[in-house]
């Protein structure tokens, strides 16, 4: 009822941008400060709720994993961090992220040790749970978020504002949309992870790339890659855009060499403690690729898991051939997007390219987790002004696809609250004056939208209240997965097509200029 009322209100309010305008008086700083403070407030409020695996011995959850890494990194020398030993039992939440995560754990571990030594002492702190411990851990995420993600978003917004016309009235809304993304907040500040760091570094790289600082961009992206290997979801987009741009320079080889030096140099810097011996490198790399965990886990809304309802991939193929298969399909599915960017690199196309390559990886790569949808949501949030509906739709179903996970973490309340905040801020988007000849949305489409929304609402309630039949204990998870997968596919197809149209337009313009 509330939603319909707001919708109605929006229709009446045609050119009323006043919701945001008063903040804009002092340029970009006003809206950014106010919205950031509100976003921090929301994050602090979410962080009072439970984390993953709270009180769930003996393995606990991601919170314990992060805490355990702090324990390991602060107590052991660098070369033993990834090494299985009596002090470092890798089967108990062993480090499985690249070295930058390990360094970050080290810094945070020192912070924890200063205020509360018990929470990171070797051995004895396993499964440590305390009021102050939780608080300190939460604050490490919060400070990482504020120090890395927020400045990156500010930079991106400044660059983006300078490059798009008529953007000013949308600026506060866009900041709010990126900073108040419910998926990211719930996973980082509820479930407990540090995605804000790698995603913040990625946004920094995108901003640098948009203002033609290609070397800075590759530096930041390499950092992101070294914080979470999942950042590789974006690698095709960065690679193809930078390659395409280099090819158009006077001296393509020199450009590529420069980029290569930055990337390799950054890698060398981060891997410094390990690059002295092959064994050490191999030890770390083998930790990063957990192939033994199978091609999919739980009920993630990607291609392998969804089709496994019909085709039992795990039984038909060996892990080895599945690895090869998934690699081939992943790469070939992002080829069109890469090809377009190499042929005609454009910044707008790059943003769509990020979304497309993230989707390719989410659908087809090996061992994808529900949380990986965050990587697709990020480029969509950067495109929010251009594609408001796509962004809302994706966020909505990304959130839904994580519903079973968040429910297990007892995060139902923040789930509802953040979803509400998101939807209402989304509807507060300043509306441009309607052109007289714009078509009304087709009845069928709006009918379909309402049906899908109702369906997901009903599924939420069913999942909460109804016990699944004994024969199919994971029936509801599977249905949620099917619904989300179908929507993701729809969005991915749309965004690939959009990128194609954009690059066609670009080529036509270039040809016109030549004539």
């Amino acid at each position, binding site marked *: 009822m*509330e939603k319909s*009322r*707001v919708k109605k*209100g929006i229709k*009446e*309010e045609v050119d*009323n941008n*006043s*919701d945001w*305008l*008063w*903040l804009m*008086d*002092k340029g970009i700083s*006003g809206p950014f*400060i*106010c919205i950031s*403070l*509100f976003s*921090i*407030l*929301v994050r*602090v*409020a*979410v962080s*009072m*709720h439970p984390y993953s695996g709270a009180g769930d011995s003996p393995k606990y959850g991601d919170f314990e994993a992060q805490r355990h890494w702090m324990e390991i990194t602060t107590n052991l020398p660098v070369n033993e961090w990834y090494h299985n030993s009596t002090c470092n039992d890798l089967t108990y939440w062993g480090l499985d992220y690249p070295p930058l995560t390990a360094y970050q754990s080290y810094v945070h571990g020192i912070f924890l040790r200063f205020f509360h030594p018990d929470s990171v002492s070797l051995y004895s702190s396993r499964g440590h749970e305390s*009021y*102050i411990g939780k*608080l300190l851990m939460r*604050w490490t995420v*919060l400070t990482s978020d504020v120090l890395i993600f927020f400045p990156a978003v500010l930079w991106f917004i400044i660059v983006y504002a300078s490059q798009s016309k008529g953007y000013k009235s949308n600026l506060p809304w866009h900041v709010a949309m990126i900073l108040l993304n419910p998926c990211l907040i719930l996973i980082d500040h509820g479930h407990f992870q540090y995605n804000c760091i790698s995603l913040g570094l990625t946004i920094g790289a995108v901003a640098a790339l948009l203002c033609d600082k290609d070397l800075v961009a590759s530096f930041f992206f390499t950092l992101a890659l070294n914080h979470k290997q999942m950042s590789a979801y974006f690698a095709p987009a960065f690679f193809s855009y930078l390659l395409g741009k280099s090819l158009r320079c006077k001296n393509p080889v020199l450009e590529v060499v420069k980029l290569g030096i930055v990337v390799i140099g950054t890698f060398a810097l981060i891997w410094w403690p390990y690059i002295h011996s092959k064994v050490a490198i191999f030890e770390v790399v083998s930790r990063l690729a957990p192939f033994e965990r199978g091609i999919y886990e739980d009920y993630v809304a990607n291609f392998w898991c969804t089709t496994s309802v019909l085709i039992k991939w795990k039984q038909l193929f060996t892990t080895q051939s599945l690895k090869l298969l998934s690699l081939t399909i992943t790469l070939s599915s992002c080829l069109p997007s890469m090809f377009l960017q190499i042929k005609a690199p454009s910044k707008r196309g790059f943003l769509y390219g990020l979304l497309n390559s993230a989707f390719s990886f989410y659908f087809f790569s090996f061992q994808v987790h529900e949380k990986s949808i965050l990587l697709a949501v990020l480029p969509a949030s950067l495109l929010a002004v251009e594609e408001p509906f796509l962004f809302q739709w994706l966020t909505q179903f990304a959130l839904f696809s994580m519903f079973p996970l968040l429910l297990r973490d007892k995060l139902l*309340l*923040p789930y*509802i*609250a*953040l979803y*509400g*905040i998101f939807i*209402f*801020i989304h*509807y*507060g988007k300043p509306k441009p004056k309607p052109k007289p000849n714009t078509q009304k949305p087709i009845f069928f489409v709006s009918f379909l939208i309402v049906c899908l929304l109702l369906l997901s609402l009903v599924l939420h309630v069913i999942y909460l209240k109804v016990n699944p039949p004994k024969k199919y204990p994971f029936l509801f998870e599977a249905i949620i997965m099917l619904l989300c997968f179908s929507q993701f596919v729809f969005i991915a197809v749309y965004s690939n097509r959009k990128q194609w149209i954009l690059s066609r337009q670009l080529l036509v313009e270039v040809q016109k200029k030549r004539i």
Partner: protein
Amino acid sequence: MKPPKQKKLQQSKEKQTHLQNPHEPTNTIIKDLLWFSLIATFFKLLLIPAYHSTDFEVHRNWLALTHTLPLSQWYTDETSPWTLDYPPFFAYFEYLLSHFASLVDPTITDLYNGLNYKSPSVIIFQRLTKRLLIWISVISSPGLLIVDHIHFQYNGFLLGLLMASLGALQNGHDLTGGFIFAILLCFKHLFAVAGPVYFVYILRHYCRGGFLRGFSKLITMGVVVIAVFVAAYGPFAYHGQIQDVLKRFYIKTPTASFTGGLVGDSSPFAILPTVTPLVTFGVVLLAILPCVFKIWRNPDPKKIVRWVAYAYTCGFLFGWHVHEKASLHFLIPLAVVAVESIQDAQHYFMLSIVSIYSLFPLLYEAQEYPVKVILLLLYVAIMWFGFSSTFSEKKDGVVSGWIEKSYMVGFVVVEIWGQFLHPLILGDRFPFLPLMLISFYCALGMMYSWIWQLKSIIRSH
């Protein structure tokens, strides 16, 4: 209780919205209002696991009491230390709520077994009902004025009533204004401080136009007010309990002392424990007198908000057994007039910081520390940008004068001292010092505000 000052941010936002488009149709304003309050409501959902004070248990107990016992025992029962000490409408209100509450979870309303009962469902229910109230008062608000009410326990609802009453007076609907104020008094007697202001204003403004006409209007108003009071107290009078009822909330138990430590008053008289209630009553009346005199001379509807706010300021500064949150009684009405001139804006800016900061000690858990600090910062930022954009043509900033500026900086110093330097330097010695410092520092600001309001009332024509 916890203070999500969200509402105030929101109200300040809305104010700005209105300023930008003075000719905006009312339905757009209501739409904006809904939009902000919905976002704020969802944000408040997030705060449910936060700390809840004894006030929470008080309200739970009142729910149980009104649900379990017959009306004749509401004001005589002493099962729990938290006896019902609010006027009858509040009791009826709790009774109404208790029916919904028992649907959610029957243990809430079980008076005897439910003592100190804190299941999550109670918390959620109580928090939700608060939200509902805001909804009701937002929707039923007469247009522009009801833009603000913080929800503090059920205070948001009461302040909503006060604002509705003031809104009616401002628009010339004196009878409605008086009627709502009478209802408000039957909800919470502490609002009676503005009684003299209301009385003189209605006498001079409503009962105008010759002796006969004025007298008949006085009678009308009298009948309305008395009807409200009869509705409230009638059932208790029927049981012959008026004495008990009055005893509960007009004569406070002697343990309610001035030097109440943590809940200590910001009143500068905190150091003089020999003051009796009667003396404070006299002082409050004396302080309101100049204002009442002004009203007698010229009962201008445009100024009624300031006058009522001034009365509550006097009540806060000189009253008996005042709680910090009583500063909201004048802060909220003043928000409405804050955008009339740059001086008002400057005063409101300072007063709101003082008032919010004085509530800081109520939330003392480490978990909530960032919440309260960021809430204040956010509020300051929004007011700062909002006022700056409204008065951008004026030379003065939102904070002018070196005394005001250094006073503002002082807040940072006081907070850093209390939170970091005090434990570092003095350790466990003088644990009351930081609280006392906050209290004293805020009292300075309150005194400043009182003098400012008094000056502006005396100078106005």
